């Protein structure tokens, strides 16, 4: 069953299914923690996990409200909406959400991705009710008015201007993404030039909030020093009476019509040194590809002895900066590399060397030792990613959006650990093809 169908089924279930409790399921991936999941009448999915090592609780509210829902001319709407969530609600004045959390010693943040807007806070566990009061108030009664919209737009534009000034490669990343993900819903940036943002209206924001910032399109994940029964009571008190909202349609599937490789040169922006972005798309995936690709990422980039780091940074010395990794945009993974070089000759050599390493992987099997190293490095990162309550809550919320059952989660690490040399060897010729490849060359000033 593909993701789109699964998502459609999930949204139908959200709107019609009565609340039900699933038995507690143990999640075992090096860490042993139990997960409780259920759904409220309004469709809000709830995930709870108890961890009493420290007197803390992390609360994540994730809405399926990312940039994928922006139309042409609306770039920045999802990000604007994320920021407006701090501008007050019926019982909470503008910016008071932050003050309430800070007074307890807690910390909070938010971010917007392709398909989600995530809001999260970690605070002393005796303040759980406060976090739920705050999150439920803005879920049910967010204050959206013209003044708040205009003020937030100005703040975002100013922050974006500062960021562009301090991070010269930010724009080249955005341009590269539009080639690597040519579909508008998948490839457009969070803010871009800011021109669309300037023209967004209060009505745009209200429409976006009504469509996507609703319980039936959200996940509440709580991890920390909690008592499950008491936490459920609190959740029922604060969230049960919020209207469910409309059914969110299926997000568009990506479509690619690239025939050969795409090689472009960035002409609009000149950067301090030459370099290039190089990427491959991996779509559609077969069973197990997700795990093989992840181990490939570690084999190529992670650790001080990985293939590309060793070749480029230690042996050839053709780049002074190399960064790369796997990025996933709603079931659409891509390998992305940025190399910065001292001159264009070096940039050319560097690019050839990277491609030759891919060719080697197509023809020869990876040794057991090299594979074991990649898997151990991955395992370490995977376990670290689950080390704090917030990490776990984010992990669980994201897994819920992928409709991944807990039974799959509990054996997920094992699936990565079972990747073998034949899996890697079989994947390379299927995906490392010209029609999946995009290069964006960077010229210097």
């Amino acid at each position, binding site marked *: 069953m593909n993701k789109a169908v699964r998502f459609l089924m999930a949204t139908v279930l959200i709107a019609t299914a009565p609340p039900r409790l699933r038995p507690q399921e143990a999640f075992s991936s090096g860490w042993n923690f139990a997960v409780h999941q259920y759904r409220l009448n309004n469709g809000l999915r709830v995930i709870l996990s108890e961890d009493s090592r420290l007197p803390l609780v992390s609360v994540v509210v994730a809405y399926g409200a990312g940039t994928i829902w922006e139309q042409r001319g609306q770039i920045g709407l999802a990000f604007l909406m994320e920021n407006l969530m701090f501008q007050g609600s019926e019982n909470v004045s503008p910016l008071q959400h932050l003050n309430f959390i800070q007074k307890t010693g807690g910390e909070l943040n938010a971010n917007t991705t392709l398909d989600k807007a995530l809001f999260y806070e*970690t605070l002393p566990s005796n303040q759980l009710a406060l976090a739920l009061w705050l999150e439920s108030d803005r879920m049910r009664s967010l204050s959206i008015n013209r003044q708040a919209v205009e003020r937030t737009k100005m703040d975002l534009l100013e922050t974006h201007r500062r960021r562009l000034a301090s991070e010269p490669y930010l724009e080249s990343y955005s341009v590269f993404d539009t080639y690597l993900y040519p579909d508008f819903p998948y490839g457009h940036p969070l803010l871009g030039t800011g021109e669309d943002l300037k023209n967004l209206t209060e009505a745009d924001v209200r429409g976006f909030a009504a469509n996507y910032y609703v319980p039936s399109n959200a996940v509440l994940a709580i991890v920390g020093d909690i008592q499950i029964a008491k936490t459920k009571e609190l959740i029922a008190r604060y969230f049960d009476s919020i209207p469910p909202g409309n059914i969110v349609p299926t997000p568009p599937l990506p479509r690619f019509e690239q025939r050969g490789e795409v090689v472009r040169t960035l002409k609009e922006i000149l950067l301090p040194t030459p370099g290039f972005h190089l990427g491959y798309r991996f779509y559609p995936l077969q069973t197990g590809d997700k795990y093989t690709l992840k181990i490939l990422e570690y084999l190529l980039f992670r650790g001080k002895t990985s293939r590309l780091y060793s070749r480029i940074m230690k042996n050839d010395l053709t780049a002074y900066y190399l960064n790369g990794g796997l990025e996933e945009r709603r079931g659409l993974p891509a390998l992305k590399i940025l190399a910065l070089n001292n001159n264009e000759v070096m940039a050319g050599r560097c690019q050839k060397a990277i491609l030759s390493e891919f060719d080697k992987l197509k023809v020869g099997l990876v040794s057991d030792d090299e594979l*074991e190293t990649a898997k151990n490095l991955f395992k370490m990162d995977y376990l670290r990613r689950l080390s704090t309550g917030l990490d776990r809550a984010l992990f669980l919320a994201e897994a819920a959006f992928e409709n991944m059952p807990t039974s799959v989660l509990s054996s997920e690490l094992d699936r990565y650990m079972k990747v073998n040399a034949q899996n890697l060897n079989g994947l390379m010729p299927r995906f490392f093809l010209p029609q999946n490849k995009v290069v964006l060359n960077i010229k210097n000033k």
Partner: protein
Amino acid sequence: MKHPRPTILLPGPALLGVLLIVCSAVEAGGQERFRRTPPLPDTFRELRLPAIESFPLPNGLTVAVTPRPGSPVMTIQLVILAGESDSPRDTPDVATLTARMIGRGTLELSADNIEREMDAMGGDFSAAVSVDYTVLTFHVLSEYLDRTLALLRPMILQPVFTEQELAVVRRTYFYELMDKRKNPDFVGQRQLLRILFENHPYKTATYAEDVVKYVMVKDVQAFYSRFYRPENAVLIVSGDVEGQAAARKIGQHFASWVRRDFERPSLPALAPNTKERVCFIDHPTSEEFVIFVGNLAMAPTSPDYYPFLVLNQVLGGTMGSRLFMNLRESKGYAYEAFSEAEFFRACGVYWARVKVAPETIHAAVQEVIKEMRALASEKAVPEEIEQAKSFLIGNLPLGLESFEGYSEKLAQVVALGLGAGHWNKVSDNLMLVNREKVLEAAQRYFPPAPVVVIVGNRAWAEQALSDFNLVEIYDSMGALKMTLRKGVEK
């Protein structure tokens, strides 16, 4: 005194109807009553962590173990009780380069061998050098404890320092410092510390990148020989381990580390700045102006430490604190306005950090000093004190949750000698702080003349600089270029 018992009226049907409406959970406007005000907190659960268990080995090495049951990742840290202030004055950065040379080769293993073995175990290794101490940190998967110790032993006991490897380490460190110099916050803080640490060994930690090139292999070797000694080190293990068993294993691996009598040099006292001093660092690439206003405070072992933490929190710890409310929310001078503090073996340093536009530089400095003086002349409002304490107590466990946060703070507790049960006492110590103690701390540590450091593009700040009586002008490396009196070169 007894209160008369009130008369109870039994409601009739009409009154009952009214009461039912009043008592229902939903108000006429449509929202439930409980939504109107924030809920009260539950009973507060104090932070309680297992105490650090210490096991002294015969050669003087101390093994400290903090159990983290169920953790699949283990952290091993070697704390060397020598930091950048122990680098010779004519070759600053030796402490940092020595720490970075650990792992760059041993008698039997090349740097590449070591990296391969570390990667093979899924582990990583980092070296951090502060003013007072050095920490070498290894994060590894728990199943590889024995294999990790087998790698650490030659790395620490038999390092080989070659000119070839040192050249690579020096170059990397140099470019890191060059990169940091682009950051106006880093440049401003460094200048503040330079002034406050004048004529003290701590100043060695504040030099610019141009001195890195002077460090030679013989300097690294000498630093290593002097300070990397078992009686000057603590090896910390945190993870799913039992203390005695971990100490025994480490004892087996590190028994050959030879003890030599060593006495750590004592540090001279530091005196706070008492005369008005304004420094401007010309940083042409800065988009905004960053102002630091700071001075010396006490070491973390002082009885003033906890009152000072509360004081600093009231001044500028969060967006609800005085600096932010005044300089950003009320006056609109600043984009950011916070205060911070850092503590060392011999002292502490605090600073207010404010980001402003050029036209508000002078006014912002005056307001920061005014807020400091206000706290030194009048007791803070009880609510402010309670909020500050609540923040500090509530925030403490957040910094201890991740492997990285926990191990960094653990090393600090060990290196600064804060005691085995340090974290469990923090809440109690903070609870004892009251308005009077905060006022005393402000009077003692907020003297009339803090050091002011401003970082920004001088071309945009000529008018602002003429508002100050005397301003020392520095370049971004920290070299004094001139002094201005009312904007005119002296």
